[in-house]
């Protein structure tokens, strides 16, 4: 009996450092959501967090009201949703197509080389990627600007023209994420029992039929799981892509502004912690509901593929 208590205590002591971290850096901020309902101000006499909090006035839902009445904010919500939905579908299509193609390459070492090359962007940060983009789009020295100049087209100041950015951001996103998800799908495809394909080809199934009736059904569980996770993140966005790549340029916000960059700018530029928290809370709440709903739907269709 004593040994059992000792074991439990030892295992507890192992979980403790991690648990403390989660408590302080994840659960305490959840409690900090009250900031969304406060007019958070620094209490000058003794500015500790607790004093600041208790001396700030309650605002009720005012922070949220402000959020929904500003026109910009609705643009950011729209941008976030449209980019995410479009990229989920486009990314899925590109990655699965490339994975199937890659699987058909007969020389395996060549396929390995392709795989290694297309994995490269996954390892780059968006800051580094923003320099890559700049090399092409710099208004005076960039490659594309120069090529356009030579053909006599007026120089385009890419970092001031919002209308080009949906395309630029889409290319950047595909550039960075496709290789990585392609490799995930490829791993799933190579895990499919090879005798299935042999049997199908002996029965005279064409390659296309094999893909349609063997490969895609086998990938469906994985596609479902990744879709649920993506749907849960539908109100979040890759911060660096929207902040660093367009260089946080103010004239581009109409097409590059998303909820995450809005939250950050509200926090860093105006130090309006209440509003920033409100925007963040709304984002979390919508994401939370989305993941539950998506999981429920998948559960109805195919309960094996659901997440929980």
């Amino acid at each position: 009996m004593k040994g059992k208590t000792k074991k439990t205590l030892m295992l507890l002591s192992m979980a403790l450092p991690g648990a403390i971290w989660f408590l302080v850096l994840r659960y305490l901020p959840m409690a900090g959501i009250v900031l969304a309902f406060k007019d958070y101000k620094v209490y000058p006499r003794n500015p500790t967090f607790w004093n600041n909090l208790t001396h700030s006035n309650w605002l009720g839902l005012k922070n949220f009201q402000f959020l929904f009445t500003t026109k910009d904010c609705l643009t950011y919500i729209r941008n976030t949703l449209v980019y995410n939905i479009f990229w989920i579908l486009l990314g899925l299509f590109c990655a699965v197509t490339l994975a199937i193609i890659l699987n058909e390459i007969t020389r395996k070492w060549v396929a390995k080389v392709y795989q290694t090359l297309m994995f490269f962007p996954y390892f780059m940060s968006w800051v580094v990627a923003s320099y890559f983009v700049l090399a092409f789009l710099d208004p005076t020295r960039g490659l594309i600007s120069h090529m356009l100049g030579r053909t006599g087209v007026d120089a385009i100041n890419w970092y001031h023209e919002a209308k080009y950015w949906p395309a630029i951001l889409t290319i950047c996103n595909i550039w960075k994420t496709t290789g990585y998800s392609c490799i995930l799908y490829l791993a799933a495809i190579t895990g499919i029992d090879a005798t299935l394909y042999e049997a199908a080809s002996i029965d005279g199934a064409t390659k296309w039929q094999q893909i349609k009736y063997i490969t895609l059904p086998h990938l469906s569980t994985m596609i479902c799981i990744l879709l649920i996770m993506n749907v849960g993140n539908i109100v979040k966005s890759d911060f660096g892509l929207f902040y660093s790549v367009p260089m946080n340029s103010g004239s581009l916000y109409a097409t590059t502004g998303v909820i995450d960059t809005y939250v950050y700018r509200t926090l860093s530029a105006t130090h309006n912690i209440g509003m920033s928290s409100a925007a963040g809370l709304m984002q979390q709440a919508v994401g939370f509901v989305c993941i539950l709903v998506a999981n429920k739907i998948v559960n109805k269709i195919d309960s094996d593929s659901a997440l929980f």
Partner: protein
Amino acid sequence: MEKNSKRPTNSVSIVTEAIFHLILIAFCGLCIIPFIFVVIISFSSSESIGAIGYSFTPQSWSMVAYQYIITLGHQLWRSYFNSIFITVFGTLCTLLITILYSYALYRKDFKFRKFFTFFCFFTMIFGGGLAPTYVICKQVLGLSDSYWAVIIPMLLNPFNIIIMRTFFQSSVPGELIDAAAVDGSGEYTTLFRIVLPVSKPGIATVGLLTALAYWNEWFIPMLYVREADFYPLQYLLQEMQAKVDFLAKNSAMMGAEASKMASDLPSDTLRMAMVVLVVVPITFAYPFFQRYIISGLTIGSVKG
């Protein structure tokens, strides 16, 4: 189907495969050409850039940017050191805490297993958001201007815990743990003497993913670090980008101050050379470790 004696049966025709090769070559080109381009720019002479802009075929080459980095780039070396230190030390801390926590979750006979599992995974679907986290880190933990300010916010990641636990489950049979317990081995001895030696691939996977995350991080320093002495390389690059942009917008408004700022800023080629220095370690490392990273990502995405 045309039969080639060497081709395995049930493969696509040669023409189709050639088209597949073209598609893949085009996509792989898209993936790495930007980096090659930046390398070329970093070796271009500034006269060439002045005349024909950034180009794949500059008029003349120059090593000036790299010479400058070697002789004068004090801030750069400082940041390089910061990045290396944060990556190495941070990864060690993360590994230690992740291994301990995952091991507790792995033990089926741990009394509070369910609670701690939920405690960790719930943070994957709900969180406080940026602003409350910032306020807690800044005002409660007092994070600022130190290496801890970068390491602590990134210390744990539920995905790593999933990966680690799954590795334990698949590579360490329960009987091994029971046998060790019968021999009177304490939990820590069991973990470090028996479990860890057989789960090296798992440790490598989590270690590499973590190291990559630390090396590439710039957002957390942007939030908490103000003192240039503690800038990691990635944030130094971001900061420079912002300064160049700021100058482009405001140079007309503020004469003397702007020209001072401009003269402090490194030239185009120098900035591109810095990008190369950030990317090169990753470029050389990742092809060797690809296997581990893929296995980690597969587990993380499917079991998550």
